Structures are given as structure tokens and as C-alpha cells.
């Protein structure tokens, strides 16, 4: 069996040809090893980095951009979005700070990608809770 894929690991977008029979998978068309890994994963269980936002308790920074530290199964994305939409960040976080340790049972953490402490001193009367 053969399948055509476009690698999404980088902007080059290599056109991959994946041949497989049973356990045996061969990948051609990739310009780097990441392409082969991507193609194999794509056949078994496509995984993606999820980027979105989380509501915060701060008026000057109402939404915090976040991303998964690593990829999660594509099929779990909507479940994860549901969990994320119920979160409220009550502490001023910085890029890399943990928002959730285990997003939707994937064991992949969710991290902050923006700096909520920036410009904080400019905001009068914003309560810092948490």
C-alpha cells in the first residue's frame, strides 16, 4: 500500500511517499530524518501541537496564549479545547511556565507562551490574585 503525504515539520513541505505492508513502513521524498518520523506517526496516530489561549483573572491581560509542550493526538484536540476553555489563570505567568501538567490525559503539559508580567506596572488597580 502507498500513501502520499506532505510533511508539515517545516515550511519546506516535502512531498512524502509512504509504502507500507503490515509492520514494514518505508518513506521516500523526505529531505531530513524528521520527515520519516512524521510519516510513520501520521499513519498510526497523527499528532499535532495545539496552540490556543486560556482566560486569566487579570483585566490588563485577559487571555494568555498557551501551547502544548509536544504534540497531542489530533483526535484529542477538541476534548483538550473543552478542558482549556474552562481554565482560569490566576497567577502572572511567563513563557514556558506550566499551565497544566497533563492535558486531557495525554501526559503532555500545557505551557504559557507569553509574558503576563510585561507592562504590569503600567496598570493601576489590577488585582494580582492566585
Amino acid at each position, binding site marked *: 500500500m502507498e500513501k502520499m503525504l506532505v510533511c508539515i515539520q517545516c515550511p519546506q513541505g516535502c512531498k512524502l511517499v509512504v509504502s507500507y505492508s503490515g509492520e514494514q513502513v518505508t518513506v521516500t521524498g523526505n529531505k531530513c530524518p524528521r520527515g520519516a518520523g512524521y510519516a510513520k506517526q501520521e499513519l498510526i496516530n497523527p499528532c499535532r501541537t495545539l496552540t490556543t*489561549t*486560556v*482566560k486569566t*483573572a487579570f483585566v490588563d491581560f485577559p*487571555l494568555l496564549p498557551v501551547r502544548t509542550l509536544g504534540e497531542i493526538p489530533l483526535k484529542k484536540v477538541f476534548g483538550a479545547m473543552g*478542558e482549556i*476553555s*474552562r*481554565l*482560569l*489563570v*490566576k*497567577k502572572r505567568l511567563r513563557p514556558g511556565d*506550566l*499551565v*497544566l501538567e497533563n492535558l486531557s490525559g495525554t501526559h503532555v503539559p500545557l505551557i504559557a507562551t507569553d509574558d503576563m508580567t510585561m507592562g504590569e506596572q503600567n496598570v493601576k488597580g489590577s488585582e494580582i490574585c*492566585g
Partner: protein
Amino acid sequence: MAKRLKLVAEELARLGLTAVYPREWRRSIVLEGEADSWQQYIDAGYAAAGKGYKGVVNDVRVRGLEAPREYLPPVQGGALEGISYDAVIIGGGVIGCAVARELSRWDLRVALLEKEDDVAKQTSSRNNGMIHPGLAAPTGSKKLIYNIRGNRMYTQAAAELGFDFDRCGSVVMLEKSLYQLALPIVRVKALQKGVDGLDILSRRQVAQREPNATSLQHGGISLPSTGVVAPYKVVVAYAENAVENGAAVHLNTAVLGFEMEQGRIVGVRTNQGLIHAGAVINAAGVWADKIAGYADDRFFTIHGRKGTIAIIDKALGPTQKGVLALPRLGVKTHTKGGGLNPTGEGNLLMGPTAIEVPQREDWSTTAEELEFIISRHLGLNRQLRPRDIITYFAGVRACTFDEDFIIEPSEHVPNLVHAAGIQSPGLASAPAIAQDVAAMAVEILKTTREVKPNPAFNPKRRLAPELAKLSLEERGEAIKKNPAYGQIVCRCETISAGEIIDAIHSPVPAASLDAVKRRVRAGMGRCQGGFCTPALLEILARETGKAPSEITKGRPGSQLLVGETKTPQGEGSGHERS
């Protein structure tokens, strides 16, 4: 009597409109029956015009065509139930608002009813902002009288009300050198009409005055009394000054009928309740015939004439001094065909076109119309390219078949005044029309009571700071007093948060995105609101105490958002971290 009716019948027959039947009603003519197309309907109307009747009522049905749809605000309630006013003005366009301001000179309870969510929503904002010199208005018409007078009044109106008025002049260029022979006659005509100034220009003089003007011109005439304004700002200025002097402006208020007693209007039925009125002024624009009908005084029919206008980027504004036009003879239209003019806000605009349309509130644009404008006007200024167009829009003029203004007290309803059929040069004529209409209303009220001047009347509108007009020092002082003037929200037009907040809390408050735009231009620049829409929305929500999802672009129902994205389960519970 029967002779002119016969004339109309003959003309209809000549046009092949065999299913159209004319009859006389009071001093007017009524057309009934059927036509096959909108063009036939229009032809029938004009066939009946100019035959000596007071008005043309065109009730001809067009087969397969739906009746004009009218917007009615989706608001019901009794907010105005039982309120009594001396004068009720129907319509918040330039005429209605200017009349409200003129009536506020008197010690009267004045109300202006507007069915839209803001003043200046229809024809009064959807035009080219031209203050015509009066040359195009026909001799003997009301258009001519009011245009000449109105044009002269603009200088004072602008000074009192604080809107920008640029008497930039116009140059009407000639397509062929042969036409120069007619110019002395045009000069005499202008003199007879009372046009303030006219100069005949050679080809070289036109090029000197407007170096970027098309090389296809063969001289022309210069009309120094031509001016331009931002029409919506004129309307807002009149409305605000009226409110400052005690008038009430009721938005989202549509007139649904009149309560009549012995031929007089005693009540105005609206979606917000029944209002008692001493005198009623019909300034209802494209629906003025319908309003007249509520009082059984429908002696004219309004038909819509759509005009499309394209706006050119501000960067090109300095390439032209005044209005440029190059009329093409032999092209039959009901306007002189539009032109290319400064907007009074630094841009240029092209148009308008003139197309007869059955729908009076359909302001959609079409590719054909825009292409026509581009082919017709873009080349008048050699610096312009199609990519310089930042936006375009359309408006619908309220025309009668007699093509003249109707400005008079009703012949049949003693307390009703009509200001109807106001099309080009309606904006230019507005200050003069308002003066006369207000005087007519005062005369009506004087028959039943004493009317004294309003002792508190102040002709000068209070102006919020407009930062673009301040020197750097004044600007600095304004920011020190109110730091919100320091924060720029609309980057294309350099409009501050402070100016936007002022507009939201002005005498006729801006409650929507477009209403803000109409007052302070935020979102009107080259990015067309791409950058500032989110910020404007948040400021509007904050200042009006509404949720962002309630904020509209304009009318109710034009909400900008459908909701919020996140729904945390309240603070202190659920999944939140630390």
C-alpha cells in the same frame, strides 16, 4: 381641465404604456394600472410630469416586482407614549436635523423622530458632500432659490456649528473646444440665476489651476462658490446643536401612522408609543410620500435614484484643489453626471452615478457601477489609479417626477409641513430650506398659541477637542488635561481614545461603530477599520456598559460578535491552576 389629462394619456400611449391609466385627484395626477418593467414605471411617471399638475402620484404596479422594502427598527415599547411636543419632525437627515435646530431658536418642545439607529444614515450621509454653486438648478425652480441661498448660508453655518466647509471651487471642463462658443451664454445664465461668480478659463488656465487635470480638457468654467463638506458631520452638527438648545432626538423610532381629528394631525403613532404633536414636519426622505399618505395628503410619489461613490486614499488628496467635472454631452442622465471632488476630510471622491431603482433602501454596490465611475472620473486627475480606491458605497436620492423640491405647508392638513423630494442640491440647500420650513411650522403653531423665542438659544455648538486641528502646544495641553487624548486608537486617521469617548457621550450619543465613525472618522482611513475595530468595540462596550457581543456596527441586529470564546467555571472553582 380635461386637456392636460388628455396630454398625459397621449404621451402614455405614445410610450406604449397601454395598461397605465391616469386620473385626476385634487390638483394632482394619479397613475394606476400595470407596467412590465421598472423603466416603464419611470417613463410613465415622467410622462405625467410637467403638465401643470401639483404633483405626480405613480401607483402603477410593475408585474413581478416586489414592493419597496422598508426598514423598521426591531424595537417595540411605550417609551414615548403620551409625550406631547409642539413640533414633531419626521426624519433625521440633513433637512430634519437642520429644521430641529432652527425650531430650537423658539421656546417650543421639539422632537425629531428617526427610525434608524443614528442621524444621517440614509441619503444625507450617502452623497458626495457637494455644496453646489446653483448653476445646474433650473430657472424658476425651488431648487434654484434654495441652492443659491443655502450655498451662501454655509459659511455662517460652518462657523456656528463647527463643521469643516471648504469653499474649494469647481472647474467644469469642456470635452470639445467647440463648446467654448457657448460659454458667454452660460455666463449670462449664471448671472440671471444668481450664481456667485463664474470665470471662463482657457485650456491653459485650467491646467494652471489644476496641474493634474486631464489633458483631454478644452478649457472650462470656474465656479468659485462651490464647496465641499463631510455631509454626515453637517447633519450631526445640526442635531447636536438642536439637542443643546432643548430639542429631543428619538432614534430607532419609526412613524407608523397619524391620529387625525377633523383633518388635523393630533397624534403620531410610532413603534415607541403615541406622541401628541402640535405641528408635524415631513422630512422623511425616500419615504416622504408614505408619511404624506398617513395624513391623506399623498400628492407626489418618491422614486429612488441610486448613486455610487468611490473614495480615494488621502495620500492623493493634495493632487487636486477643487471639484473637477467633465460633462459628456449626449449622455442622458438626471444629474450632471458627478465628478471628482475633495471630500472636505482630505480624501478625494468620484461619482455619484444615477440609476433609477425600485428599492429605496438598497445601498448595495455593483461591479458595473464601480467600473463606470472609474472609466468616467478616474482619468480627470492624472495622478489617480484604480488601486488608490479605498472604499465605495451607494446612496439613494429621493426624487419626485417633477424633479423639484416640495417645501410647503400641506394644502389639506392644517398642521403639516412637507419638505420632500429633496435630492441634489438638497445638501447645499438645507440651511435655507430649514429656515423656511421652521418658519412655516411656527406660523402653524402661532394660530393656536403664542410662540416666543428661546431665551437660552445658543447658535454655537459646543465642540469637543478635535486633535487634528490643534497646534502641537494645544494638543499637549489637551493631553495633560485628559490623558485619553494621548492614546491613538485609529492610526490611519490619528484619532485618539479621548475623541472616541467624547463622541460616545456627545449630545446625540454614538452608540455603534459606524456612529463613532460618522463623528470622528475612526475606521474611515485606508485600513478601513482593520486595526481599530477591536479597540473601538472594547471602548464602546466599556463606555456604554454593554457586553462586547451587544455592540453593533449600526442598526440593531448588526452585532459584530456572536459571543466570547472562553467560559471558565467561575473564579475559585473548577480546573484552574494555582
